[in-house]
């Protein structure tokens, strides 16, 4: 019948469609990514070589913005605002990632002891993750405010000389951001480690126990080394969170006192949009981009090489 005649043609069409359909479906997202991510990365880089101020213009001035950015650059004495931002980022990233991993791993190991009410604990520790950084920042701003929060509470309990005012001290304010960020993210790291721990074959542990290894030794020599891929993903996730961090700082300290808790992201925003120094802000954005690349590229490289080896 007619059907039979058409079948060959239709089948061929379907087959061809099947071949190009994924490409058609992917095309819009590809085009969007090409323009709105890679296109604008290119455009921002270009702007950073111009002298754009209020509005973008295309008068090239070479690397002038970069030399201004790194003028008086000193991570120890903080002679320029950019060096404050960069050294804050380093302090914050190292502490944030380190403490999150230590707390997350400890919590995961404790929860892995098959304790009663594990589900409850897991939810309690994971819950801060459900908040946005804005909420976390606002809550900690009140907790750490000497007039409203912790200091006042403990003084009212009778310890009248208790002082805890890191939030308002220029040299210590950056650590309050670490506290808030760790509070928010360590539960998530715990969940990562917990799933890693659950994935370890019980028989290996049993075998080690038969061989007479104590629990600490089993953790040190067998379990933690086998969590290596989890460590890697935790570091990568926390690392990009810390480089991008903007909302937490805006909500918690607004970069203050003064600009003591400025970070590259807040620096970029301030200079591009509040101070009409578009090209200067673009230069700092490009530096941030390069820093992210410096982390991502080795990671991608090792990941891709890893999968190839497994095959």
């Amino acid at each position: 019948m007619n059907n039979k005649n058409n079948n060959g043609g239709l089948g061929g069409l379907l087959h061809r469609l099947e071949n190009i359909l994924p490409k058609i479906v992917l095309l819009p997202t590809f085009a969007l990514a090409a323009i709105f991510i890679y296109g604008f990365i290119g455009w921002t880089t270009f702007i950073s070589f111009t002298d754009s101020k209020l509005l973008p213009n295309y008068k090239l001035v070479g690397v002038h913005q970069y030399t201004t950015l790194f003028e008086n650059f000193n991570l120890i004495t903080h002679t320029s605002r950019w060096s404050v931002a960069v050294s804050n980022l380093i302090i914050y990233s190292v502490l944030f990632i380190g403490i999150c991993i230590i707390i997350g791993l400890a919590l995961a190991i404790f929860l892995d002891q098959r304790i009663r009410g594990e589900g409850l604990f897991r939810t309690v520790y994971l819950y801060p993750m459900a908040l946005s950084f804005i909420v976390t920042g606002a809550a900690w701003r009140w907790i750490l405010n000497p007039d409203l929060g912790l200091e006042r509470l403990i003084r009212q309990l009778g310890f009248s000389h208790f002082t805890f005012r890191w939030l308002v001290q220029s040299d210590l304010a950056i650590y309050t951001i670490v506290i808030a960020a760790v509070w928010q993210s360590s539960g998530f790291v715990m969940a990562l480690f917990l799933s890693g721990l659950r994935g370890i074959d019980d028989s290996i542990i049993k075998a080690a126990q038969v061989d007479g290894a104590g629990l600490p030794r089993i953790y040190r020599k067998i379990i933690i080394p086998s969590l290596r891929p989890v460590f890697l993903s935790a570091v990568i996730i926390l690392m990009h969170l810390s480089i991008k961090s903007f909302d937490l700082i805006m909500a918690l300290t607004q970069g203050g006192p003064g600009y003591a808790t400025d970070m590259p992201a807040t620096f970029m925003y301030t200079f591009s949009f509040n101070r009409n120094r578009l090209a200067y802000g673009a230069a700092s954005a490009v530096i941030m981009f390069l820093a992210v690349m410096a982390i991502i590229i080795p990671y991608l490289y090792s990941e891709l090489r890893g999968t190839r080896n497994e095959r």
Partner: protein
Amino acid sequence: MKLVKGLLILLVASLFFYCGPSGGGTVEVLHWWTSGGEAKAVGVLKDMLEKEGYHWKDFAVAGGGGDNAMTVLKSRVVAGNPPAAAQVKGPQIQQWGDEGVLTNLDDVAKAEKWDELIPKVVADIMKYKGHWVAVPVNVHRINWMWCNPEVFKKSGAEIPKTWEEFEAACKKIKAAGFIPVAWGGQPWQEATVFETIVAGVGGTDFYKKALVEADPAAINSPTMVKVLQTLKMIKQYTDPGAPGRDWNLATAMVIKGEAAMQFMGDWAKGEFTAAGKKPGVDYIATTAPLTAKQFIFNIDSFIMFKVKKENEAAQKAMARLILQPKFQEVFNVAKGSIPVRMGMPKAPFDSVAQKSMDDFAAASKSGDLIPSMAHEMAVMPAIRGAFLDSVTNFYNSDMTAEEGAKQMADAVAAAK
């Protein structure tokens, strides 16, 4: 889409106002006067325009302070579709002028005699290369000191007129268990107090050299060292909760009698009024130490963009109406500022505004009318940013006043 929408609105507007005396036209106005009294005051301008047969289109962008609005404005201008008017102030008017997108209001200015009504210092800010491109709306005075007389009485202190008296009063107030100064530890607020001290300690000429011309030699000078020492002196009379505090919370401390005084512009009056306090009785508004003669001003203005021919008449009408006595009175009473138009009747205004009006007129004669650095009237945003950075950096660290003056000069030179 925007174009279609715009055309539709035009069509509707022209249908409605076809019989209007001036033939209609639309002004699209970008502003962020969206809160209570301000929104009402803007509504008056809208009514006045519509009575003349023009159509007003609000382009209000939420998010106070205008950062969001400026971003939207920039993208509209880059896209070649600017509004008729936008709330832009100070030296930024010159930056927009450099972009070549502003219209020329000289004919309105001439017909309405703006040059006679508005002090020259203010007029110069509104002009680009000698041509009017912007219309001033209101005047705020920065160098006010808001005092709670009750706290002064209880502490046995006098309201200070010099910085020596100020320190003496602060000691008494602190000893009596009050916070001498309600301080909002945000960079712009610290800069507000800083410029007030510059005007008082350094005088008008030094203020102009240091904060308007941003002359590094004036900034890195013994006078500036003295200014910074005074600023640091105040710090010991503030409370530990000050960093990050919003200005209105600091005002509330004075209202509630927890603190004795606050340095803030005349918008602080709104907080006192809202709390039901009376000037001269429940609170005293006086000029900051040593600045009785000076008037540090902060002026809001509208810049006017080049628009399509059919909307030009509406735009010019708006420019004219803003400086008419009726709008000046209604708007400024509602906003708590004073008219930028000189010689207005003082009766509708409260006593604080009346003093402000007298001082405004006197200062514009004596040459003590000076633009605020902290409120974006004196220098470009990049230089203002450098000032704010170095003031707050100095205030919040242990560096000496000499080091503070030097780093300020360096930062300002780098931003030029």
